[in-house]
């Protein structure tokens, strides 16, 4: 509680340039009172530095709990480290040589397919469904709740459920298709050639509701008079979407795409439970490779290099999308 009020006060002081510094102890905790009196006694009147002092505890915890693990990953990537002993010694850039192997390029390629294959349909379907759900219709609120259900289901549970649905021997889909006589042999949804497509479909099913929710929220902020003006000007359906709706959605979509891309890149449980990265490593994305290196091969160094690549990939995507969005807004 003290920490929280301390942090708030620091932020307030930074923001308001400490104009009301003399007043704040009156309506604050005993701790703040004590501190402010201490400051007065020390004749620390420089408002600028006081603000920083108030922020220091927060920064301290931020550094300890947020940046220490990241620094540890960076250190491990330049060293020899395993899961039991942690960092052992420095090896320079030796671990980064793994980035120039066919094995890593394969992982990167599969990760790229996983992201593009998931993201494009998620955004397209998400926007289409959001547009449909934005229309007034009986039971529309129920439908709006219904479409977000997949998003609410935990990843591990969803993956297990889909594993049962797609199983060759006792899966719902194969059993239905076999009993209806549509197929004579069960379809292998998780074979070398089909596993990636199957996990992508599961990802689309799981991730699309997020786009639906954010897009729907953005659609509801479009003023009715703009819509009416467009109609009066004779805008066609596509023109209305392209020049009225889409500009309103762009900012929300940019943020949603960055968030969803980051999530998709980090997805581990769906693939691990459904395929374990196989068969024949056909679904071994970067997150699976990190797990395998860290916990199967006990090679923290290689896993750390892959983790850093993940961070860099996310940063590239984020910077590109936000930059593009910024340029569009300027225009």
């Amino acid at each position, binding site marked *: 509680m003290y920490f929280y009020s301390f942090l708030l006060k620091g932020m307030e002081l930074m923001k308001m340039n400490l104009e009301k510094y003399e007043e704040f102890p009156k309506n604050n905790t005993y701790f703040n009172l004590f501190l402010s009196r*201490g*400051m007065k006694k*020390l*004749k*620390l*009147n*420089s408002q600028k*530095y*006081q603000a*920083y*002092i108030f922020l*220091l*505890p927060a920064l*301290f915890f931020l550094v300890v709990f947020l940046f220490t693990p990241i620094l540890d990953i960076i250190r491990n990537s330049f060293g020899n480290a395993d*899961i*039991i*002993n*942690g960092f052992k010694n420095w090896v320079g850039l030796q671990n980064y040589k793994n980035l120039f192997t066919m094995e890593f390029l394969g992982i990167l390629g599969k990760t790229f397919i996983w992201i593009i294959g998931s993201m494009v349909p998620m955004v397209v379907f998400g926007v289409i469904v959001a547009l449909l759900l934005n229309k007034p219709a009986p039971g529309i609120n129920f439908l709006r709740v219904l479409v977000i259900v997949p998003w609410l289901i935990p990843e591990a549970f969803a993956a297990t459920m889909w594993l049962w649905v797609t*199983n*060759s*021997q*006792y899966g719902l889909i194969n059993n239905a298709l076999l009993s209806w006589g549509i197929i004579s*042999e*069960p379809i*292998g*949804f*998780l*074979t*070398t050639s089909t596993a990636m497509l199957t996990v992508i479909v599961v990802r689309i099913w799981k991730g699309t509701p997020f786009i639906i929710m954010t897009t729907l929220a953005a659609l509801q902020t479009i003023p009715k008079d703009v819509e009416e003006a467009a109609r009066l000007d004779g805008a066609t359906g596509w023109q209305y979407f392209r020049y009225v709706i889409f500009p309103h959605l762009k900012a929300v979509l940019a943020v949603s795409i960055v968030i969803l891309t980051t999530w998709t890149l980090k997805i581990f449980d769906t693939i*691990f439970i459904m*395929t*374990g*990265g*196989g*068969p*024949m*490593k056909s679904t071994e994305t970067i997150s699976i490779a990190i797990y*395998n290196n860290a*916990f*199967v*091969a*006990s090679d923290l160094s290689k896993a750390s290099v892959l983790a850093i690549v993940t961070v860099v990939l996310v940063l590239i995507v984020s910077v590109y999308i936000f930059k593009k969005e910024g340029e569009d807004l300027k225009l």
Partner: protein
Amino acid sequence: MKKIKSLFLFITLLAGLIFLSACGSDVAKVADSDKEGNKEGNNEQITLKFLRPGPAEVVNPIFNPLLEQFMKENPNIKVESMNMGFQDTAAKYPVMASSGTLPDVMYATMDRGFDLALNDKLIPLDDYLTNSNLKEEIPESLWNGITFKDNHYWIPSGVGSIVLWYNKDLFKKAGLDPNNPPQTLDELITVAQTITEKTGVPGLGLPGAVNVDHLSTMFQSVYSSMSGNPLWDSSKESLTISLEENKAHAIKALQYLHDLVNKHKVTQSNVVEFSRNDLRPLMRDGKVGMVLDGIWIKGVIKDQIANGSIAPTTFPAGEGGSHSLVGVDGWSIAANSKHQDAAWKLIQFLMKTENQAKHGISYGLNPVLKSEYELPEFKTDFWKPIIKSEETGYSRIAHKNIASLETTISEGVQAAITGASTPEEALEYILKETEPFLKK
């Protein structure tokens, strides 16, 4: 001047924080030293942490009464039991070891045990064993499987060996003698073909997924039965398939597994989707005629075992005999334990014949103690092939990188059974890709 004062205040605040943290550490140290004091005292209360991974609903009913009894017999020892999923041990054991928080008495798995032992996170139990009858009570073959750097780091308690489970009803339906299951690898093909043709049910369930060691297990069992050799040479710390004289056997084993799927077509479709666990419900439901699995399957097919419709037989023999793979997990003492003598006391209690039998029967494990073999429960026809396979089987790879080695072997085998590689190429892949893990 103001800057200096601000800096002074900052340092004061930071020092305050460090001081508070240090106070916390001191309190912990005082508490620890108290514990140390307790250790030295004979009748002082001590607390042991205990971990047997597995589903809580299975583990707790077995061990809670046992631990209660132990605490009653040893009023100065309190045992706190922890729960952990079996699959979680691969990730959690190393993390606990790294932070010095491994439980005093823990169930070491082959997947992690050697790595922990090599890094001095488990203590060798050989000194304790010199004053115990456990060395004689447990078959030599099981001790050999877990001998690591001339020491033993856990006491065999969780043992399982691969045997052939067959569905007698499907045998009858296919016109086969339900009391005459296949005894050789060639007969396995013939019988599986008959079941497939006559009943429309796949004759053999084969685990083809890589994410667990199950595919590697199949290969090791077939290879050892064909060659008569174990896959792992503990004296040279190498794979025997790397020797020229054994390569032909390895290729033959890979070819055999490939043919089961592609030539004879006696397995379930899309084998790469299935782990050993996935095949168990199929066996229970009569959707495959036979599976190669350990006693761990018992939990899923207990009703069928009880009514006699599913029974085990020894792993089908090849030219080198019947040598299926044996997994040997067991009780170990963490190096970070402050109460190692008390931990050993608990292990000895758990390894008493009746307690080990309760553990094995309830969880689904092979009998381990020679005195267990004499119990009426294990004198039945059901247990005979299982006990025999334990005696003739070969243990898993005793290397700190066992998980990586078995995963790599599984990848090679998967390439062979899917036809992505020829058996020769698959063997080459296995030898090349396992080399760095063997050297590490």
